[in-house]
């Protein structure tokens, strides 16, 4: 069984939603693993064992970030929030307000509440023919 945590019948869900569920579940597991290894490393008394646990914990950090990046690429919600909060500076609770004020990245609304750019972006027409 892939996952027992679906909240709706699998037949009612799209493959995108199920893949997102898999990724979120995996991300949760990776973050839990970091927590567990962190606690074990701190509590254990053998230095060699601690080194291994710390190594494993750091590996889980990589796995978690890879999963987060997958979610960012696939999901507009993650894309927007990652751009806003990750690698920001200053008080985290002020980041969103600061972004709006500065119009960073050309995408946040300005003080009038309107988007500073018209949001045209790419208009490229995707075709499958190989000619």
């Amino acid at each position, binding site marked *: 069984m892939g996952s027992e945590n679906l909240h709706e019948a699998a037949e009612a869900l799209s493959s995108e939603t199920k893949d997102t569920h898999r990724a979120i579940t995996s991300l949760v597991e990776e973050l839990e693993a970091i927590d567990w290894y962190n606690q074990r490393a701190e509590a254990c008394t053998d230095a060699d064992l601690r080194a291994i646990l710390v190594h494993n914990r750091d590996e889980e950090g990589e796995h978690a970030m890879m999963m987060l990046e997958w979610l960012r690429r696939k999901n507009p919600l993650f894309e927007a929030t990652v751009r806003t909060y990750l690698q920001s500076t200053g008080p985290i609770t002020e980041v969103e307000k600061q972004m709006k004020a*500065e*119009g*960073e*990245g*050309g*995408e946040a609304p*300005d*003080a*009038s*509440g*309107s*988007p*500073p*750019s*018209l*949001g*045209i*972006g*790419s*208009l*490229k*027409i995707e*075709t*499958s*023919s*190989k*000619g």
Partner: protein
Amino acid sequence: MDLLKRSIAPILPDAWKAIDAEAKRVLQLNLAGRKVVDFKGPFGWKFAAVNTGRLAMLPSGPIADVASGVRTVQPVVEMRTPFVLDIMELDTVARGADDPKLDPVIRAAERIARAEDTAIFYGYEAGGIQGLVSASPHAAVVVGAAADWPRGIVRAKEALRSAGVGGPYALACGRKAYDELASESEDGGYPLRKHIERNVLEGPIIWAPAVVDGAVLLSTRGGDFELTVGQDLSIGYAFHDRTAVELYLTETFTFRVLEPTAALLIKRS
């Protein structure tokens, strides 16, 4: 407040929405280059140049036995085109009008779309941009009559294939070429444009008013042509008096031809 200074314009939010929506509609109709080239960005106002990865060697270093070079970059061009709107007309939107007169928005959107596409297709030397038609090493294919378009496109595709440029392909048509393809029919009465799209080109025909001398066949496989945008197309505020407000459409961008052989001009004689 940012560079666009929209928050100090005497324009109500609903009127801003109407202006933005009209500009976006016209831009999406008129911008042809963005429908066929790769797009990078938008990177915002602070983005100044594209890293070309190249080094321009200097004739001598600061001291003996030290070679030096300067990293070359391609700076973005900042374009701006103004337009004036009647404040009373804009206020009608707040009173419920759903047909404000926004002709100046339409003209400005057409102008900046034409400017961007002219730079993409023919280049803009003063801005350090080489266009994909100007960069193409292929001799133009000449089409003598409307009925010759399919054969001309086949020859052009063959020229690209011979240069190692695979598809999918698209055809960016100037006004006259597009009108001709749209209005002509094959012997059996089947529209020429549809026949070309489905059976000859196997890709889209794009309305590209900036193309002035026929049509451009190009590969859309990716990696050949790159439009890099800093601040994407935006409307800003310049100034106002008692009756009118001057706004402008602006953007920062540059364009690079990475594979010159991936486009070919088809001229209509």
